[in-house]
């Protein structure tokens, strides 16, 4: 049982090294030559996949953090407790990677700190920037017990433990704000974004889908950890998540259809076209297929089925974000945007780095509390810490 695992793992390692090397090369290229030669961005199309994928999807894929901490610590759903840590880790990693990607995309990255002192509260981007900054701090705090435990620092652990609930509440508030605000970013372009995607409800859709993706991502990463990092699969937890995912997807679908009807866009779905096709692809992947899959008990309650449904959901909402950022903006810009290899390389490296760091962290940090014995921690520490560990420290 172990052997094939290891083989595959080394294959993926090779892929990973290649992807990271290509990404590093692309980043150097971009900083030496500027955005023009290193991207296919133009005056007509100023935002490409570094915004559409790295930022929009990156933040969305990191939504499991607030969804899970909120469910466990605010709604007191204790069953989900064991997976809070890996989820917080994913979120923390996600936001780190988004920040790095942003540095690559910004024309003047050394000015990234300017929003701290140069305010424009009317700008959605200003608000998103602040929320992301604050939320990354929150995530660092939520994540800190894992590191503190590893090095057996009891004092700071105690403080974090006391402040946990306010920290979690702050995290949920910041997340609600910036997850929805990434949709608000596009409210300013009613005449540019295709009507399939432009709606005053953009912030609501971005927020709802962030929750769906947070759940799907948690299922996905639990399954991945079970497959590749030899962790035991928490099937009873994943079943709950699958159920919740289905509910959120249905609510989202109802709202989406209502919105299309009220804005009179539904009939455009019948007219063939580039936007229509990608819109249908998005709806199929994000909503129709996952909901259909999850409606079967066999799918909803088996590891393989849940894994499949979550992957398709993720692909669906990635399509959604790219549709908003790219597909929906092309017609008004009068151009077709296809990313240059450098853009793809950087984005791929971000994803690769995410997997790699997650894998490493699961190896060296007590991410999965129930498997403490597997982590090289001195016995004395394990004896001293369990109280704190189990109750609060995520």
């Amino acid at each position: 049982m172990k052997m094939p695992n290891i083989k595959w793992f080394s294959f993926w390692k090779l892929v990973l090294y290649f992807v990271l090397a290509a990404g590093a090369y692309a980043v150097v290229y971009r900083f030496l030559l500027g955005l023009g030669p290193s991207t296919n961005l133009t005056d007509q199309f100023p935002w490409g996949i570094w915004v559409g994928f790295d930022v929009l999807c990156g933040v969305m894929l990191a939504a499991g953090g607030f969804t899970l901490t909120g469910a466990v610590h605010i709604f007191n759903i204790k069953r989900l407790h064991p997976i809070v840590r890996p989820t917080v880790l994913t979120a923390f990693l996600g936001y780190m990677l988004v920040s790095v990607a942003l540095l690559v995309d910004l024309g003047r990255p050394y000015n990234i700190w300017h929003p701290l002192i140069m305010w424009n509260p009317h700008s959605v981007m200003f608000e998103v920037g602040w929320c992301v900054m604050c939320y990354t701090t929150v995530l660092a705090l939520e994540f800190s017990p894992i590191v503190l435990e590893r090095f057996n620092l009891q004092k700071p652990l105690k403080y974090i433990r006391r402040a946990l609930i306010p920290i979690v509440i702050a995290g949920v508030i910041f997340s609600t704000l910036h997850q929805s605000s990434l949709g608000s970013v596009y409210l300013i372009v009613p005449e540019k974004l295709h009507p399939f995607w432009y709606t005053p409800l953009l912030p609501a859709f971005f927020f709802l889908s962030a929750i769906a993706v947070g759940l799907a991502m948690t299922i996905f990463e639990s399954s991945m950890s079970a497959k590749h990092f030899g962790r035991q699969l928490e099937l009873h937890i994943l079943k709950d998540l699958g159920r919740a995912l289905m509910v959120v997807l249905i609510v989202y679908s109802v709202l989406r259809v209502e919105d299309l009807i009220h804005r009179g866009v539904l009939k455009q779905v019948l007219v063939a076209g580039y936007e229509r096709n990608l819109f249908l692809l998005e709806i199929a992947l994000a909503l129709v297929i996952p909901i259909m899959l999850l409606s079967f008990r066999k799918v909803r309650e088996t590891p393989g089925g849940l894994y499949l449904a979550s992957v398709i959901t993720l692909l669906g909402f990635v399509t959604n974000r790219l549709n908003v950022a790219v597909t929906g903006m092309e017609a008004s810009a009068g151009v077709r945007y296809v990313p240059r290899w450098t853009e793809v390389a950087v984005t791929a490296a971000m994803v690769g780095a995410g997997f790699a760091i997650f894998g490493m962290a699961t190896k060296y940090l007590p991410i999965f509390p129930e498997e403490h014995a597997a982590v090289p921690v001195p016995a004395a520490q394990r004896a001293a810490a369990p109280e704190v560990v189990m109750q609060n420290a995520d």
Partner: protein
Amino acid sequence: MSKALLYDATLCIGCKQCEQACADKNKLPYDDKVAAETRQSEHKFTVVLAKDDKFMRRLCMNCNDPACASVCPVAALRKTPAGPVIYEASRCMGCRYCMLACPFGVPRYEWNSVNPKVQKCTMCSDRVLAGQQTACAEACPTGATKFGERSELLAEARLRLRDNPGKYVDHIYGENEVGGTSVLLLSSVSFEEFGYRTDFPTDPLPNRTFAVQSRIPDFVPLWGSMLGGIWWITHRREEVAKAEGGEKKGGAK
């Protein structure tokens, strides 16, 4: 007292003196090759377009409530009370949201620079503040581009429309588009011919965003107290029903 430009395409002779003057004013290169370019770019802030014997200028509209300035996270772009929408490069972090947001597709980027700036017409802000007219208006030999008080120029445009029935398209472009602009256009052929969209809303685009953004200060305490309340209820219930303990509790106690 906001200044504006009135461009009357029927008076334009396509001499491109405004292009030349703009380039000189902004210290940009200008030769026959640049003159032949028909697109605004990081080295050409205004263009005179020609179709048969009809002409049209394109430049930053210096909107009354500019989308570009409203979205800029660091307020590098600003609408000045005098009319011009100005850009402060030292603040800019290069997110290019202004380019995405501008309904007229105006801001240009120095894509080939490693320290890139956004570039666009800033309606000669320094000249306007010094009491002068814009370089383009000064250079225009026929008065097709005219500088003045926005309200006065509007009144004049209305007069021209009234006194010359049939000569113009009955529309002062920029009077109401996206809340009005500091550049006003008159033309004898459809504005769409030259790429000006006529399907814009008359309310400023930043209103769309503000409708949501302005709720945030109310939303935060509301959401916060709800979350706190939910925490209190769910954990209180737990205390009361402590005996139940049958479910799996992630190993706690």
